[in-house]
C-alpha cells in the first residue's frame, strides 16, 4: 500500500518532457518532487504563473510571489506572469497537458466531487470547476477509501459534483485505475496489495486489466 508520497511518485511517472502541468493542493503538489530525470515540466499556478520553482529560502521570500495554495514560492528560468483571465484561458483552451487533483469522490464515468460537503461550511470551488471542465488530461490523486473505510471510487458521486466525465485516471494508495467506458480499469496494484483487496475497496464498476501488474515504484 502506498503512502501519499508513493501516490505522488507514481503520478510523476506520467510526466513527459515539455509538459505543462497544473498540480492541485495536497498530494498533487508533492508530484513536483518526483519529476523523472531528463524530464522537464513546467508547473502552472492558476493565480498567474508558469514556471513554479521550489519554496524560497528565508531571504528570497516575497509576498508578491505565491502559488495557488497561497504559499510563497520562487520561479524557474523561463517563467512568466499573467493575469487570472489568461491563466484560466490557457486552462480552458486545453494548453495545459496534465492536471492532477485531489478528490472526495470519483465516479466510474469520470465524474468528480471535490469541493463541497453538505452541512459543512462551504469554502468555495476556487479554480477546481474550471480545471475539471477544461483540462484534457486529469489524474486524481487520493486515498482509495475515506476514514470510515468507504470507497471513494463510486458508481455515482453522492457529494455535489465539481465536473462531469472528466477524470481519466485515478491513482490511490491501492493502485492505478483508468476510467473507460467500462468504468474503472485497474492497470496496476500497489506493492503488498491484492486484487481482492482492491475489489473489496471499490464501489464503482471495476474491471481488472488483463495486463495488470504490480506498480513499478
Amino acid at each position, binding site marked *: 500500500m502506498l503512502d501519499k508520497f508513493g501516490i505522488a511518485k507514481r503520478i510523476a511517472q506520467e510526466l513527459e518532457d515539455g509538459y505543462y502541468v497544473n498540480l492541485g493542493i495536497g498530494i498533487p503538489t508533492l508530484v513536483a518532487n518526483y519529476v523523472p530525470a531528463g524530464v522537464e515540466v513546467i508547473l502552472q499556478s492558476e493565480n498567474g504563473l508558469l514556471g513554479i520553482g521550489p519554496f524560497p529560502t528565508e531571504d528570497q521570500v516575497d509576498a508578491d510571489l505565491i502559488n495557488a495554495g497561497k504559499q510563497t514560492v520562487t520561479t524557474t528560468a523561463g517563467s512568466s*506572469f499573467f*493575469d487570472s483571465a489568461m491563466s484560466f484561458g490557457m486552462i480552458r483552451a486545453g494548453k495545459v497537458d496534465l492536471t492532477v487533483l485531489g478528490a472526495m469522490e470519483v465516479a466510474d464515468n469520470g465524474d468528480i466531487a471535490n469541493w463541497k460537503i453538505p452541512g459543512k461550511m462551504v*469554502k468555495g470551488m476556487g479554480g477546481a470547476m474550471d480545471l475539471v471542465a477544461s483540462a484534457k488530461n486529469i489524474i486524481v490523486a487520493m486515498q482509495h477509501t475515506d476514514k470510515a473505510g468507504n470507497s471513494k471510487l463510486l458508481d455515482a458521486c453522492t457529494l455535489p*459534483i465539481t465536473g462531469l466525465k472528466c477524470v481519466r485516471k485515478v491513482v490511490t494508495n491501492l493502485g492505478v485505475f483508468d476510467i473507460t467506458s467500462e468504468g474503472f480499469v485497474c492497470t496496476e496494484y500497489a506493492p503488498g496489495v491484492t486484487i481482492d483487496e482492491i475489489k473489496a475497496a471499490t464501489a464503482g464498476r471495476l474491471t481488472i486489466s488483463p495486463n495488470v501488474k504490480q506498480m513499478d515504484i
Partner: protein
Amino acid sequence: MNKVVSGAQEAVRDIQDGMVLMLGGFGLCGIPENCITALVDKKVKNLTCISNNAGVDDFGIGLLLQQKQVKKMISSYVGENAEFERQLLSGELEVELIPQGTLATRCMAAGYGMPAIYTPAGVGTEVAIGKEVRNFNGKDYLMEYAFDADFAIVKAWKGDTHGNLIFKDTARNFNPLMAMAGKITIAEVEELVPAGQLDPNHIHTPGIYVHRIFQGVDYEKRIEQRTVRS
C-alpha cells in the same frame, strides 16, 4: 488630465452605501490595502464585494467584514476567515460562489465590452442552476454575464500620472481585469512616477482604464502561507 489624488481617503470619497465594488488580489497578495482601510474609516455599509477571496479575520476584506460593512461577497474561495463563517451561518452575509476562471473572465468581459461569455466551468453542477446551457462543437457551456461594478479598486506595483499600471509577479492576478471593468477605477500603487517614465511596452493596464491613482503608504503585504526551504 488629472487622475492623481492625494490618497485613499480622497480616492474612495464618493463610494456610497450599497454599491458594488471589485477588489483586486488573490488571497492577501496584491490587495488594495490602503483603500480597504479607507473604506473601513468611511464606514460605508451594505457593500457587494467582488473579490476572489475574502481576506483573513484581521486583514484585507476581513477588516470590512469585521465592521459588518459587507452585504454580499462574490468570490471563488472564502476560507481562512472565522468572522466570515459566523456571519454566513447567521445569515448576516450573503455569498455567491463562482468558479475562479468564470470570475476572472466575467471581469474581463466587462472591460472588453462583451455582455456575456461561454465557459464549460460548472456545467452539470449546482453552479449551472438557472443558467443557459449551450452546446458548441459537442461540448456544453454555460452563459455567464459580464460583471457590472460601480468601482474597481486595484493595487499595482508601479503607476504613472496617466494611470498606466505595472504589476509585480503574482500580485497581478485579478487586478488588471478589474481595472478594466470598473465604471470608476481606483489604483493604489507602491511607486507613482510622472507619465513617460514607464516603458510603454511594459504597461499591463493602459491608463484609459484608470480614473484615480495615488501612491499608497505603509504596505504590510502580509503572507498567508510562509513556506521556506532550508
